[in-house]
Every structure is written in structure tokens, then in C-alpha cells.
């Protein structure tokens, strides 16, 4: 087993384990922390798939942006428990059996599909960083979608601030 596979196993364990703990916990803040760990593991997996540009963008966007947004959302929609006076962070759940069994059956089905597929294992392998190609591509061939994504982000953020302000 090469060092690369060992690194992959560690990162995959981090990702899957914290995703499972996100599913298991009922505390909203614990779930946000577990999502942080999931995103860290995913960034590592992106690096191992030679997508280092995407890994850095993912870290900036998810850990720096989305997670803070979620924490603000939790803070602004906070409810205090009338009995104890403490913050009420526990979420209620529907019955655990049915959703988890549906998710498990989806996982087993996809696992079976991926393992049985004859079209995956014999792909050729290339291995180096794609940083230069991605930079060139985003400024030449994919320049228009790139600018469009920027304008889309601007529209979405202005729309979000408009929706979130109080309309009294």
C-alpha cells in the first residue's frame, strides 16, 4: 500500500466519519462543527484527485464563507428554552429507522453499481497538478461562463441582502 493510498484512507475516514456524526447528532452547533471537518477532508480529497485549484477555492468558500453564514443563521434564528432559559439548539427528528434505511439502501445500490460497472477500472491514469491548465482555460476558453458566474454571484448576494432585510 503506497503512501498516497494511506493518505487517501485517512482523509476518507475523516470525511465519512464526520458526515456520519453530522447525521447522528441532534445539536445544531455540533453539526456545524462536523460539517467543518467534512469540508476539510473533502478539500484533501480534491488535492489527491489533482484538483488543487478547486481544493483551495473550496476551503475559502466553505470554511470561510458558508460555515460562517450557517453560524450566523443559527445565531439569528436562536430560540431560548422557556424552562431553563438556555439556548435551544436541539433539533427534532422524524423516526430514525426509515430515513437511515433509505440512505443505506441508496449507498448499497450505488456501491454495487460502481463496483460492478465494467467501465471504470481500466481508465488511464495521469498525474500532475492542473493549476496552469485551469488558469489558462478560465481566462480563454471558459472566460464567458467564468464572468457569468461572477455576475450570478453578485446578483445572488444582492438578492440575499434584499430578502434578509426587514420589510416592515
Amino acid at each position, binding site marked *: 500500500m503506497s503512501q*498516497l*493510498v494511506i493518505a*487517501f484512507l485517512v482523509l*476518507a475516514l475523516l*470525511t*465519512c466519519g464526520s*458526515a456520519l456524526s453530522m*447525521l447522528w447528532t441532534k445539536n*445544531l452547533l455540533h453539526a*456545524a462543527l462536523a*460539517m467543518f471537518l*467534512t469540508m476539510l477532508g*473533502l478539500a484533501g*480529497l480534491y488535492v489527491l*484527485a489533482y*484538483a488543487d485549484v*478547486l481544493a483551495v*477555492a*473550496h476551503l475559502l*468558500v466553505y470554511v470561510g*464563507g*458558508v460555515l460562517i*453564514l*450557517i453560524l*450566523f*443563521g*443559527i445565531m*439569528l*434564528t436562536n*430560540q431560548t428554552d422557556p424552562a431553563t432559559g438556555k439556548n435551544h439548539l436541539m*433539533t427534532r427528528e*422524524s423516526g430514525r429507522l*426509515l*430515513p*437511515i434505511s*433509505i*440512505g*443505506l439502501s*441508496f*449507498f448499497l445500490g*450505488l456501491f454495487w453499481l*460502481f463496483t460492478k460497472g465494467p467501465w*471504470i*477500472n481500466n*481508465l*488511464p*491514469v*495521469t498525474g500532475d497538478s*492542473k493549476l496552469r*491548465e*485551469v488558469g489558462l482555460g*478560465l481566462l480563454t476558453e471558459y472566460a464567458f461562463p467564468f464572468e457569468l*458566474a461572477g455576475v*450570478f*454571484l453578485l446578483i*445572488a*448576494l444582492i*438578492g*440575499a441582502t434584499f430578502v*434578509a432585510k426587514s420589510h416592515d
Partner: protein
Amino acid sequence: MTDIPVIYFLWVSAFLFATGLSILLLKKNTIFILMGIELILNAANLNLVAFSKNDHSLQGLYLSIFVLVVGVCEMAIALAIVLQVYRNYRAIEVDQFKSEY
């Protein structure tokens, strides 16, 4: 040095997708459901990146960058909507949204 097979990435992404789907079905808090959607989006992204490892034109990698941008936009708008819903109903759990009219 031998490379990591594509199928390992596919297994991890299948696991992430199943976990996100379970979170969507299980939890009743709206912010929790949004976190499940983020997990599903990232499972799709991991698939795109893993296949683009073997693609010289790198189309999956470009698509995954745009998926990232759209995911962020969705999260910002959705949290703004959750905030407005909380102002109107004083609740963020999906079975407490009942019309009073």
C-alpha cells in the same frame, strides 16, 4: 508512485450522497436540511473531480468550479429565506410552518 483508483473516490462520494439524503429525510430543522443539501452537492463535485482526473480537457473540473459558485449562491439565498420565515412564524422546523389564515 501508483495513483489512487477512481473507484475509491466514487465510494466516498456515494457515502456522502447517502448521508446527505438521510439528513434531508431525518432532520426537521431547516438549517440542518440545508447542510444535507451541501453534502449532496459536494458528493456530486467529488465525482466530477475524480473523473476529470483522467480527462485531458478537464471539463469536469471546470463544471465543478461552477457547481461550487452555484452552491454558495443557493446557500446565501436559502439562509435569507430561512431568516424571513423565522420572522413570520417564530419557528424554523419544517412541520411548524402553518398558515394562520
